[in-house]
């Protein structure tokens, strides 16, 4: 057998790679599953109120995209449930019951989302318009609720509460305390807002590219402005939520904070470090703002922040540079998007329109990729920053992994399958635009003839 040659030792690297890869892929599609229903229902509502064919055609075309992305999200999310057992049997055997409840409730929310998506998409031309619009509401609620409950489980891994261990066995569990752990508030809010921002900037990007290519009509302007306005409003809120999340990390996961900042030694009046790299127990070439970290984390310029040296070597995150730069990149992109939002707000205030500069459109065109990248490196920060723990200070990754031999072949297969899926998904989404081109001035007939399913 091919597996006979493989070692019988647990392989956390392959398991981590597979989980990280499939989760990192799914989360992008999942963001659109959370955000896109709200956009579709919003433009459908505007179309209903105004009768404007541009809004009504946008609703149909976005709904069709939603149908594809939701299906891909459903199946790529299923893999994750299976992977929790296949890769992390140790975690699930020991703590499945502690983090199970939010998953069970998430299952209900996911049912609601899937049921009403079927009704909403396939019922498009079968209901009275108002009833159809209302049937979209449970999709939004189900999507946001799913995101909330599933992220509470990740929050628990960062700030585990709600259980008692005696002699290696779990003797008591309070599943509600586990669900509403100290990380739940900031982490779930941060992720839900991120999902809405990824959707908003992502959809706006598509229309920015189209306008840059000369399609500067009402349909494309609305396609740009509606999602971009939503995302722009959320951007300053997200920066506030991010600050809340970082201060939670400072309290709950001091080793993660130290890695995020590349703080080697415990420091009173710790500086905020930007950029650089961590090597030999020291951060090199970073730009340091005096007392910045103490102010941000503790609201006190003289506060003492624990450095990595305060913890035993085998309890420290091994990839400090990755955590530090990922965090900086996320924050940097966040402020870049804030500048874009301010540009839009200023122009809207002065001219009642988005900035006409091509540089604005170019910036919007990359904002979708930037927002997605920020969300991904945010996950890298929290996940790599939690190492070597899978459950912070409770269970190490090495003790959580499935010991069966050959796990790495699963990882190779996942990479191959997702690479193919990515190429096909992009090709399908591009084809959907081209196979039915958007008319210069959509008429009633263009709306009616565009079938959602």
């Amino acid at each position: 057998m091919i597996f006979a040659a493989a070692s019988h030792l647990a392989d956390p690297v392959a398991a981590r790679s597979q989980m990280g890869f499939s989760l990192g892929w799914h989360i992008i599609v999942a963001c659109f599953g959370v955000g896109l229903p709200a956009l579709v229902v919003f433009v459908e509502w505007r179309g209903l109120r105004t009768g404007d064919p541009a809004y009504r055609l946008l609703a149909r075309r976005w709904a069709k995209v939603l149908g594809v992305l939701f299906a891909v999200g459903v199946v790529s999310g299923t893999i994750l449930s299976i992977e929790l057992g296949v890769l992390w049997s140790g975690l699930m055997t020991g703590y499945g019951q502690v983090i199970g409840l939010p998953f069970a409730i998430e299952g209900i929310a996911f049912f609601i989302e899937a049921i009403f998506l079927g009704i909403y998409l396939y019922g498009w031309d079968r209901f009275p318009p108002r009833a159809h619009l209302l049937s979209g509401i449970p999709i939004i609620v189900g999507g946001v609720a799913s995101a909330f409950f599933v992220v509470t489980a990740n929050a628990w891994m960062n700030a585990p509460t709600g259980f008692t261990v005696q002699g290696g066995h779990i003797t008591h569990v309070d599943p509600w305390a586990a669900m509403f752990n100290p990380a739940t508030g900031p982490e779930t809010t941060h992720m839900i807002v991120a999902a809405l921002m990824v959707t908003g900037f992502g959809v706006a990007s598509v229309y920015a590219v189209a306008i840059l290519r000369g399609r500067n009509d009402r349909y494309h302007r609305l396609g740009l402005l509606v999602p971009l306005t939503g995302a722009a409003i959320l951007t300053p809120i997200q920066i506030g939520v991010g600050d809340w999340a970082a201060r939670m990390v400072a309290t709950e996961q001091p080793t993660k904070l130290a890695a995020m900042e590349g703080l080697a030694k415990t420091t009173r009046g710790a500086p905020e470090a930007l950029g650089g790299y961590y090597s030999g127990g020291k951060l090199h070439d970073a730009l340091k703002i005096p007392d910045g970290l103490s102010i941000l984390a503790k609201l006190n310029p003289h506060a003492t922040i624990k450095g990595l040296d305060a913890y035993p070597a085998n309890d420290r995150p091994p990839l400090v540079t990755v955590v530090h730069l990922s965090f900086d990149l996320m924050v940097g992109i966040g402020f870049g998007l804030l500048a874009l939002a301010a540009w839009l707000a200023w122009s809207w205030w002065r001219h009642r329109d988005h900035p006409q500069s091509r540089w604005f459109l170019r910036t919007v065109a990359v904002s979708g990729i930037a927002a997605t990248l920020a969300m991904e490196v945010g996950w890298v920060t929290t996940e790599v920053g939690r190492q070597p723990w899978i459950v912070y200070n409770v269970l190490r990754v090495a003790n959580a992994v499935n010991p069966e031999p050959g796990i790495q072949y699963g990882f190779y297969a996942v990479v191959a399958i997702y690479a193919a899926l990515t190429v096909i998904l992009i090709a399908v989404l591009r084809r959907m635009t081209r196979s039915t081109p958007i008319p210069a001035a959509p008429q009633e007939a263009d709306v009616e003839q565009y079938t959602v399913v």
Partner: protein
Amino acid sequence: MTLADTLAGVMWLGVTFYTLFGGADFGAGFWDLVAGGAQRGDRQRRLIEHSIGPVWEANHVWLIFILVVMWTCFPGLFGAVSSTLWIPLTLAAFGVIARGSAFAFRKTVTEHWQRRIFGVGFAASSVITPFFLGAVAGAVASGRVPPGIGRGDAITSWWNPVSVLTGVLAVTVCAYLAAVYLTADARRSGDESLTAEFRNRALAVGVVAGVVAGVGLVFLHADAPALAHGLAHRGLPLVVISVAAGVICLGLLYRRHFLAARLTAATAVTAVLWAWAAAQYPHLLGPGTTITQAAATRPVLQATLISLGIGAVLLVPSFTWLYVLFQRQNPSRADITPNHLTPR
């Protein structure tokens, strides 16, 4: 009945619904696969697409429901099954990905060659997925998954006659349910020849499913005597119900009572699943791991049951609306006649 028994029952209810609804969606993919050439199979494929399109995602969530209830309420069971059986579970997961994506992609393209590629992907994975999930069930039923993490053999636990036969049975059962359901859908569409085609298939695969199940019982007798004994004793009434319902279903199909045939087909399959559960009760993984021993702590079981109870209040009317809505709608002839040939 203890709280743990109740939640085991809830989990098994999830398995039942997944088989009856999700299984039928997989079976529809099986019929898509064997529908024949592009011209000949087109009407069948249209009907299949029309029937499962609005519902497959919601039906699929039952799989997630089963996994979640398992790891929440019986974490040791989940850990043991998924670690030892990681290969068939991973392959089933790949099948899930391919099936859902290809089905969604096929709807968006119009060119013949593209529809064919996605169609084959959808149809082939609709066979692969239930096969591996069935093999997982066979491995558990025949006691090849020991308690603990990764204690069983990663290969022989599922690659053996009983597990493979269970996989084949799963594919057959899915095809059977789908054929019976689709016959009624075909008649509602008013297409007589399509109805006749699915009726003949339902009759044929109904017989095949019975034979595979019978052969399985013979194997089981030699391979897993404890389970066979359970089926012959505590599970016997349910086995009898299953056989009777299966036979009546064939009669109803023959007499063209297609809606009643749906009910009996679902009854036959449900009875098999619960006969297995009854035969194995109270053990989850062979002797030594009972439901009580494997159960999570009481507060977890209580919180889960309460949450799922509240969830059911939301889900039952929602599901009812979904199914009634698309069953009441007559699929017009236009929906199942080729429309990719006409420009839209």
